[in-house]
């Protein structure tokens, strides 16, 4: 596999974590423009742990997920009291605050005669753990997709369970869910924390794949894309956001032939798609149709 394809497939895998994070919140009825903040928290935390303290990547990833969940919980405490557009704006503001905090973060130590660690707007260089351990690009790709498969399997199981039904009911009619005994606020906080942990896991992997991160990596563009992944792919199943990421990155790369106008072409294609399929390609109706046909064949 050539470098271009490897890089592309790895990016699809990495951003899928962010897409699934936005998808989880969409299922709970909330549109977050701020999941990139937790992606950033994971990236910085994971990078600091492996680069400055020599912590193995799996442990660093677990710690970063915990921190991502905590950050999302703390952001969710005040913001989840808001509804609709107000929640979206609050999450966007929280993500921008996080990005500005990354710009203020200076935490460097001397490693092997060189300063390493976050250096504010200059970014965080030398997150070289996977290179120091001799992990090949193909192996990293395999690891990324194995983790993604685990997350996906867990989400698909949840969707088929009572928990999944509660999640969709909270998203579609929170008043009715509350009337049936669901503590909606507490439930949404749990979803927000899980989504934060997922985004943080993607962030850790992103930082180690790129070897360099900077606050600009986690700006509003990434937040918009993460929502777009879920909305393009569809809200009917957890496979939707993955399809969204593959389409988004695939169309972006495929439209290179349009040169400087490719973002216009890309934006136009996304707009047309959302007009034709407002709840994405794999929406609830299509997923229901496919599953009921599959059940009939049995």
């Amino acid at each position, binding site marked *: 596999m050539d*470098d*271009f394809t490897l*890089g592309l497939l790895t990016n699809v895998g990495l951003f899928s974590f962010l897409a699934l994070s936005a998808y989880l919140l969409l299922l709970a009825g909330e549109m977050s423009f701020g999941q990139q903040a937790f992606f950033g928290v994971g990236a910085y935390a994971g990078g600091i742990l*492996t680069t400055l303290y*020599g912590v*193995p*990547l*799996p*442990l660093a990833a677990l710690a970063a997920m915990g921190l991502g969940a905590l950050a999302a919980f703390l952001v969710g405490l005040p913001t989840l009291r808001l509804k609709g557009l107000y929640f979206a704006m609050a999450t966007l503001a929280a993500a921008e605050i996080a990005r*500005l905090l990354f*710009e*203020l973060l200076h935490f460097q130590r001397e*490693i*092997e005669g*060189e300063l390493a660690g976050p250096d*504010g*707007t*200059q970014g965080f*260089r*030398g997150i*070289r*753990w996977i*290179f*120091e*351990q*001799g*992990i090949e690009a193909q*192996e990293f790709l*395999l*690891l990324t997709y*194995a983790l993604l498969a685990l997350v996906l399997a867990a989400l698909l199981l949840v969707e088929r369970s009572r928990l999944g039904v509660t999640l969709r009911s909270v998203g579609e009619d929170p008043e009715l869910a509350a009337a049936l005994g669901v503590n909606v606020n507490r439930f949404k906080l749990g979803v927000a924390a899980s989504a934060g942990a997922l985004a943080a896991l993607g962030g850790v992997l992103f930082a180690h794949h*790129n*070897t*360099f991160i*900077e606050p*600009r*990596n986690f*700006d509003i*563009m*990434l937040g918009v*894309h993460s929502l777009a992944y879920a909305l393009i792919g569809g809200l009917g199943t957890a496979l939707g956001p993955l399809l969204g990421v593959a389409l988004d*990155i695939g169309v*972006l790369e495929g439209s*290179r032939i349009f*040169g*400087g106008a490719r*973002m216009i072409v890309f934006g136009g294609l996304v707009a047309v798609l959302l007009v034709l399929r407002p709840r994405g390609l794999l929406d609830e109706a299509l997923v229901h149709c496919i599953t009921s046909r599959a059940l009939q064949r049995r």
Partner: protein
Amino acid sequence: MRVVVLVLALLSAAPVLAQGARAELACRFTGTDFVYDCLIRLTRAGQPLGGAQVVVGADMPSMPMAHNMAPVKATPGRQSGEYEARLDLEMTGEWAIKLRLSGPVRDQLVLHYEFDEQGARPAKRKARR
């Protein structure tokens, strides 16, 4: 199974801090819009790093994912540690040049350069306090 072995290996891996490679970039505007001929100088522990395979990619940090360049392989230059590559960027401005090294050393270096009609120079950023 391969994944399980990989995860176990990752858990038990101790940090092996090898001295990393360093890179400098000198680029010349070719006269064609946004196309630059670049000379990459690689060193390791102060010595030229020859015999490496270098793949060069580029991303625009201010517009992540929107503007990037498909990776190109650099060819060895006239002197040891020198490599040449032609970069076909989409616009002027700050670009993050990603150098993926293999061969005698496996590493990835990211350099930030400002590209314009005069060529390229290291990007300067304002610190926030």
